[in-house]
């Protein structure tokens, strides 16, 4: 469960807060579409949720853990253990193979490493399995990531987000670089995996056309009092 209450965040050198949320709750296993045009405080909210940005005021709790009470290092460890992230595009490190990009998801988390091993014996085996499950052929796995299409790159990123079964998946406009057909197919695969691991999905996008696929749609401008 993710719970936000009385959250106020003001960036340095800014006179007014960028984000001001009275209350937001996302239940376990829920797939939420968070609609936010650019400038609505989307990135700030994601930074606070994932613990890369320290909380100034109010509280954010993820899986019952109040992030405000954790130190920077502990927040980083918490993120490594419990949150998988998919970015808009260029999700992958160019100098690693697709397989290595996936196992990177376990690199900073013994917990996720253990879970991946519990499931498939080895982290690499689990990475391989996830890539296959997300529709990537074996012959693509040894290639350089720059040889993959954007759709394929996003699947690799999704596999990295899912490896080691983090409870929360945060996807920041992961489909914006994809065409309409691939978009829905990608979301379908994403949901397939999320349901398998009972992961909570927070999908951020400015594109409302996808919102009907989700359990719930939240409009960030409507809950962010700072932008009103």
């Amino acid at each position: 469960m993710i719970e936000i209450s009385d959250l106020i965040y003001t960036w340095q050198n800014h006179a007014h807060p960028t984000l001001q949320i009275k209350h937001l709750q996302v239940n376990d296993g829920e797939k939420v579409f968070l609609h936010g045009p650019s400038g609505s405080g989307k990135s700030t909210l994601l930074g606070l949720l994932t613990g890369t940005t320290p909380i100034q005021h109010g509280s954010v709790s993820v899986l019952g853990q109040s992030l405000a009470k954790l130190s920077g290092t502990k927040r980083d460890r918490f993120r490594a253990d419990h949150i998988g992230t998919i970015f808009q595009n260029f999700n992958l490190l160019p100098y690693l193979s697709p397989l290595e990009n996936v196992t990177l998801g376990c690199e900073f988390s013994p917990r996720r490493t253990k879970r991946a091993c519990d499931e498939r014996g080895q982290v690499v085996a689990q990475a391989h399995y996830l890539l296959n499950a997300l529709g990537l052929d074996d012959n693509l796995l040894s290639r350089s990531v720059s040889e993959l299409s954007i759709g394929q790159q996003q699947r690799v990123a999704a596999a990295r987000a899912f490896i080691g079964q983090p409870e929360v998946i945060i996807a920041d406009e992961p489909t914006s670089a994809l065409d309409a057909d691939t978009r829905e197919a990608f979301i379908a695969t994403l949901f397939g995996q999320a349901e398998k691991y009972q992961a909570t999905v927070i999908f951020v996008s400015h594109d409302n056309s996808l919102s009907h696929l989700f359990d719930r749609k939240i409009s960030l401008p409507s809950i962010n009092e700072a932008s009103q």
Partner: protein
Amino acid sequence: MTLLKLALKSCWNRRASVLLTLFTIAISVMLLLSIERVRIDAKSSFSNTISGTDLIVGARTGDIQLLLSSVFRIGHSNNAVSWQSYQDIKKRRGVAWSIPISLGDSHKGYAVLGTDSSYFEYYRYAKKQALQFSSGRAFHNAKELVLGSEVAKKLGYHLGQNIVISHGMGNTSFHHHDDNPMTIVGILAPTGTPVDKTVHIPLIAIDAIHATNSKPRAITRNSNKQHEHGSHSGQDHEHGPHDLDNGSLNSEPSDLIGSPKQITAFLMGFDSPLYTLQVRRNINQYKAEPLLAIMPTVTLKELWDMLDIVEKILLLFSMVVVIISLLGMLTTLLATVSQRRRELAILRSVGARPWHIFSLLSFEAIIITLLGCVFGTLLFYAGLLTVTPMLQSQFGISLSLTPLSPYELTLLGVIMLSGTLMGLFPAARAYYYSLADGMSIKI
């Protein structure tokens, strides 16, 4: 996959710029090491060359020129000291010993030095060490010669062998007179000085060599002597191998000097420094002919002081080159940091701490500097192997092919430290970005 492995892979991904940077550092390291090695080895090989000699006397020329020609066999003086002047000066009060030397000929590229037995008795090098024979003994007559260790080794000569010394400088001798061979009776132990590269023959033999040569205006008076010596030494020649068998017992020392008209220079030792100064003054004002007396220690120091500036400038330049190469690395790394903000954000998203990001960037600087130092050292040794023979034959500087000295390791350590410190800048910038960017990917 540790951070180090990530750093290596990331470097490999940008290998063109990384390798160029690495190569720049390697070259600067090689340059610095070479300059320092040459400087230190040159210094010790210069100052070890002669010791215990109070004065070197030659025809009037420059101090350093006289030192170089008489001791280092570099360059050659055209003028000479007349035998009469030598005889006159060596009788001065306080003169403990004197060694006449006559240079100007060479055997297969090695200097031929005519002298007498006092050379083996009084010549000192390094820390007042006397010349030792690794085998054989000093020459006792006009048909015998003594080799420096390197001459024997390089030319494959051995005791008892007969060789022909002919007139002229350089490898090609103008004349080969197989009828006038000399016997190797002694090989000196290595000294690490030009003595190793010298063929020592009796003064009298110098005359013999010159006498057989028709070309130079060689001393017609001595050609008459030739007959005398010819028969004399012919007899000795028969005895030559015999002498060796029986040691020096029945080898009656015969005339080693003959009647030379002139010699190149002579070395002198005195009973007291007081005499040294007095005789030096007398020689420099010598009426009969223009002579020059130098104190080798003083001239060595002068020579060294002269080279000191050059040496310091070289050191300065090589240090600047090292600094430039490290700054080059800094520039490259700093430029990549902003290009890599996305990469850093991805690493942050999977749980990398800002400290990890800092280490990753630091590792890259350390890896590049370390590999630069390693390749630089390899280049240095490769260069040493190539250049050593040339330096040895041209300048008489023997470089040692030894492992890195503590001083050289310190230099490398300083470069490593500087490289590491330089790496802190891009690392700090990446650290700052990773904190400021958070989850948002800029660019």
